[in-house]
């Protein structure tokens, strides 16, 4: 079984150039070992990459992240935005069974059943009775989801939802092979899983590699260029970079860390793909007690942080300095910004000192804050830089790092003054971030932030069907948060991936979505691969 790899490697270009029946195989660093391939059981980025390749949704995602028809060839939305009717195309499971609207109903009910314990179930709470089903208060059959016939699915929402179609494009909402799941509990079987997507599950060696094979039964199989994708769960980015240099992998979904970015920029500029990403890196203030309850202190702390030094000098990974809470690249409202941050630094520093004096802090009454972050070299660098920037204000910072579980547990239990936080949006919608600061949201609970105006705006947005109007209201909510200086935004994330120039069809997009079915490989000898 152990083919000598060097022999293989030297033979590969030759075989490819022959251009016969040689399989097009893409080797991918997939960041980590999948937690589960059941699309409703796990929610890591790397899990969903595989899940989506195996299970198509009614709504699919194009190479550039746009929503396109998937198993549903089209859909209608009622004028009030509460009734969605999906029209399924003639498609079959990999075992030949037709894919029906009943499969979709089965899957959505399963998604919301408490026993499934899905992480993202709340994204579907707009569906009639969804929350009650998820809480175990209603039977799954009460869910507002109905198969009108084998090819028509009707979903009724309680109120319009700006991101419902995006939620339907997520792995969670993929129709599942009802005929398999109803007879067996263990239905994810390497080599024998019934799938609807572009790839079937081949071999799976946990912690080593997982192979996806092209699914000939996929409705658009003729457009899939890759015959096989081998996914490696590399935990160490340096391992990924070394294997990339050795041509052992063609594409790395891991983020290039700041410790390696200089090297990559210098040595492999052709392979570095940097693009804005729907995530915000910020510091959360605990507003419950002490100095941070005072908006003047929060404003002063915000004013003296020079974001561009952190992004350009300290990290250098291409992150974008941020003056707001919803990343610029996301579909947020225009013109939202934290007031006062645009002034020159000297002016801001002066203003900050004055604010601290007003709040009663100065050389004789210094302010001591604990800044918590979770273990990571880049988080450490940012924390050290911010502490140094606060120092001239007379603020003494105690840095406190801990491993992730302890860090996030401490935030949940409000045991922090200032805490590092990163929010990566699950759907490209401002509510995914801003909503967390509304009453009942996780950030509001952790930080103790309360503002009736923001709550009212969030509530209002839930009843607006018009996308532009809704975005404007959410923008006002975001502005409210910023006017209160309730957070300290630092930068918008970017995605930094190593992509071999041979890989085609990799399009940068804000959700960092790169469906495998649209990727192809140009062989070294024939630059333009005949993908279609």
């Amino acid at each position, binding site marked *: 079984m*152990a083919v000598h790899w060097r022999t293989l490697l030297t033979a590969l270009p030759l075989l490819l150039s022959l251009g016969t029946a040689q399989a097009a195989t893409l080797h991918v660093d997939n960041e980590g070992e999948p937690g589960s391939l059941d699309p409703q059981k796990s929610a890591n980025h790397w899990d969903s990459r595989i899940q989506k390749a195996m299970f198509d949704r009614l709504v699919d995602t194009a190479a550039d992240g746009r929503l396109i028809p998937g198993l549903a060839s089209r859909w209608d939305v009622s004028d009030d935005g509460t009734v969605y009717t999906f029209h399924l195309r003639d498609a079959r499971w990999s075992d030949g069974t037709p894919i029906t609207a009943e499969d979709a109903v089965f899957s959505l009910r399963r998604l919301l059943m408490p*026993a499934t*314990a899905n992480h993202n179930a709340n994204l579907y709470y707009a569906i009639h009775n969804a929350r009650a089903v998820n809480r175990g208060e209603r039977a799954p059959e009460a869910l507002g989801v109905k198969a009108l016939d084998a090819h028509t699915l009707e979903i009724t929402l309680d109120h319009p939802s700006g991101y419902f179609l995006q939620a339907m494009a997520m792995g969670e909402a993929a129709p599942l092979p009802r005929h398999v799941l109803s007879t067996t509990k263990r239905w994810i079987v390497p080599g024998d899983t019934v799938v609807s997507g572009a790839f079937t599950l081949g071999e799976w*060696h*946990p912690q080593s590699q997982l192979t996806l094979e092209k699914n000939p039964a996929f409705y658009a199989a003729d457009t899939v260029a890759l015959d096989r994708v081998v996914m490696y*769960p590399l935990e*160490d980015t340096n*391992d990924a970079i070394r294997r990339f240099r050795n041509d052992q992998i063609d594409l790395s979904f891991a983020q290039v860390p700041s410790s390696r970015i200089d090297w990559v920029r210098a040595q492999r500029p052709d392979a570095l793909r940097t693009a804005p990403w729907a995530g915000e890196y910020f510091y959360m203030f605990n507003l419950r007690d002490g100095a941070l309850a005072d908006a003047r202190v929060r404003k002063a702390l915000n004013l003296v942080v020079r974001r561009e030094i952190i992004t350009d000098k300290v990290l250098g990974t291409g992150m974008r300095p941020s003056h707001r809470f919803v990343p610029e690249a996301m579909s947020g409202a225009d013109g939202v910004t934290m007031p006062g941050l645009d002034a020159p630094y000297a002016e801001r520093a002066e203003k900050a000192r004055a604010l601290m004096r007003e709040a009663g802090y100065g050389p004789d009454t210094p302010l001591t804050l604990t800044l918590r972050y979770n273990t990571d070299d880049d988080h450490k660098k940012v924390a050290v830089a911010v502490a140094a920037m606060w120092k001239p204000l007379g603020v003494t910072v105690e840095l406190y790092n801990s491993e992730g*579980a302890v860090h*996030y547990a401490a935030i949940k239990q409000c045991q922090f003054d200032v805490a590092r936080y990163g929010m990566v949006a699950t759907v490209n919608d401002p509510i995914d971030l801003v909503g967390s600061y509304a009453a009942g949201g996780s950030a509001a609970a952790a930080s103790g932030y309360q503002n009736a105006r923001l709550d009212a705006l969030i509530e209002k947005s839930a009843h607006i069907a018009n996308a532009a109007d809704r975005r404007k209201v959410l923008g006002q909510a975001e502005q409210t948060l910023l006017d209160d200086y309730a957070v300290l935004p630092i930068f918008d994330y970017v995605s930094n991936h190593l992509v071999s120039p041979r890989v085609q069809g990799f399009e940068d997009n804000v959700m960092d979505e790169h469906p495998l079915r649209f990727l192809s490989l140009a062989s070294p000898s024939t630059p333009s691969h005949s993908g279609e």
Partner: protein
Amino acid sequence: MLSYTLKRLAFAVPTLLVVITISFFLMRAAPGGPFDGERQLPPEIEANLKAAYHLDEPLPMQYLRYMGNLAQGDFGPSFKYKDFSVTELIMQGFPVSLEIGGLAIGLALLIGLPLGVIAALKRNSTIDYLVMSLALGGIAVPNFVIAPIMALVFGVLLGWLPAGGWNGGALPNLVLPVIALSIQQIAYIARMMRASMIETMGSHFIRTARAKGLSEVQVVLRHALRPSLLPVVSYLGPAIAAIVTGSVVIEQIFGIPGIGRYFVQGALNRDYTLVMGTVVFYGALIVLMNLLVDLLYSALDPQIRYDD
């Protein structure tokens, strides 16, 4: 000897029970749970997750449930790797760790023991200093530094070997991780062997042996070697248990599917069942290895007797 062995084996059960019990409550008392992550979950979803893993029950109840399952040989499902049971994860990863670790230990003994003996016999000579300095290099440079350097030099720059990956255990993929894992062990074994050899060579019975006109080689091979192995053997017991259960550093750097990562990652993810699985597995191995070491003692030095 047999009754001693049986008695020790019988002792293993209560020992493991204590280990399991302490570990269980230790782990659960630590802050942070399996669902505390960057994405804070809405309360109803967290409640569903906790119910799915019985984490909503009182702790003593969970303990009894765990012990009940364990008695039937069921380690439970992993929280993090949901498509596999803990038993499957360990059984898939252990052969890999055992292969790499076993080879590394073998290599370390093969190189370390002779080096230690030679250095001891040529004490304070150039050879001694050279050997000991080399050994020291293996200790002074931590393996999380030496391993990436090796991968970079031999994998990427020279291109002699794969830069990483397991590839079903192909020979070229084994070389770097095994060497990286053994360097430190070589150094340990060589240094301990040297010291204990010097100790033995100075003792009475060696002088007697020499007086009998035995050649130096005979003295070393027939008389000095065995008693000198005692400290090395003491060290090796737990060391072997640790090494064959994988090294998280080596596994991550080379991307090897062993179980070493589960010890650290299971704990970091608060994957309670996986942590308990590794604890039980490792505990059993420790008990077994330390029993073997004690039996080896009496083989190496007949004067050592265990009172039954």
